């Protein structure tokens, strides 16, 4: 579970060591009774074990914005 912000992409790690990039904005908002939509084929890519926001390097140019 991850707090989302605009422009954020997620890096999903599976138990097979695969790194999958996920763009949350590609998915619609759901209610709490929804189970969402399948984005990872667990048979071929493995079971997701960790999700972290993909780190975008912060440079001086970003700080000045």
């Amino acid at each position, binding site marked *: *579970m*991850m*707090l*989302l912000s605009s422009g954020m992409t*997620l*890096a*999903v*790690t599976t138990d097979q*060591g695969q*790194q999958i990039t*996920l763009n*949350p904005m590609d*998915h*619609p*908002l*759901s*209610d*709490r*009774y*929804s*189970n*969402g*939509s*399948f*984005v*990872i*084929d*667990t048979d071929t*890519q493995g*079971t*997701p*074990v*960790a*999700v*972290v926001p993909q*780190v*975008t*390097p*912060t*440079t*001086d140019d970003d*700080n000045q914005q």
Partner: protein
Amino acid sequence: MVAIAHLQPQQLGLKAMLTAYLEHRRDVVVRRAKFDLAKAQTRAHIVEGLIKALSILDQVIKTIRGSKDKADAKNNLVREYDFTVAQAEAIVSLQLYRLTNTDVTALQAEAAALAKTIARQQDIISKPAVRDKVITDELQAIGKTYGSDRLTEIEAEVENLQVDTTVLVADEQVMVQVSRDGYVKRSSLRSYQAVSPDSNGLKDEDAPVYTAQLSTLTHLYIFTTKGNMIYRQVHELADTKWKDSGEHLSQTVGLAPDEQVLSVFAFDQLDGDGAFTIGTSDGYIKQTLLSELQPTRTYKSKAIVAIKLKDADATVTNVYFNAAGADALTVFVATYGGYGLTFALDEVPVSGARAAGVKLINLKPADHVANFAVFTQPDNAVVGILTQRGAFKRMRVSEVPVTSRAKRGLQILRELKKSPHRIVA
């Protein structure tokens, strides 16, 4: 320091060095006393002979006048008056002016003084207390002659001995990277720009947790999944090329084999206000002030405990930093079993660094906290939820109304009878 003691090079502390010096002084004093004793005894023997000779002066003169030469005079004195050879030699060498009454008195005074000296030297040789008194007196005399006032001040307690190393460090901008598996590095901007950002030097199964351009004087707080906080200033990180992996934290700080870096915070100053919010997988949460998590004297070799994990298998799920004066904050927590709970962060008390915290959510047996988030506007906050079956959904936090801490919460996934979805960490 290393010194030669008892003919062997040894590592000696202050006490051992002083003890060795005292042993040396005792040896010196005994040798000197033995020398002085022998000298005084020899002189006393001569003086005794001279006094005896003066008491029978007429017979002695007569014997000397009746002798053939000096050697014969000495032999006659030894034979007739039981003088020793040394005494006889002193008598025949005696100058005539020494025969005055004054000189006899002087010889008697000398004999008395020599007797005292002999007794004193014998005491020094045979009595350790007398010997130590001599050493004490001599050291005090040296102190009086050559001593100078202490320039330093001895205090009962040293308040805060801090060397400001920042004045020695050049303030320059560098790129910093900390990876999930614990590799840290700093690289020059030139090295960073020379390669593509993806060439970060990490293994395929590792990933950067933090990458930023920082000053070499910036303070980094690196939190791990086992509740430890590792403090470093940027200039203390290994200076490597951007395409190199960097230095592993376990090279300086002991990390558990399954311990990973969770999050990294950068501070320009450490005296600011604000608090960390730390939550664990076994359902505890706490706030700890930045001032409570200051680097210790041993920070380079030892991680600082940021939260006490009640369950050895538990991990820290997330760490947030809330600057002082921020708007009212809300917490949303999601569990592996699919429960979600929203409550105000004000319900979480501020506690010390070693505290375990308070209950975050009422977990069902075998359930654990997948993650939690802290934010300001619950109406606009959106979370992403990924399940072990590979499903992803976006959901507004407002789907779970704000209640209070330590409750069970609401289901945020539809529970399936077969292959139910579970939220991954």
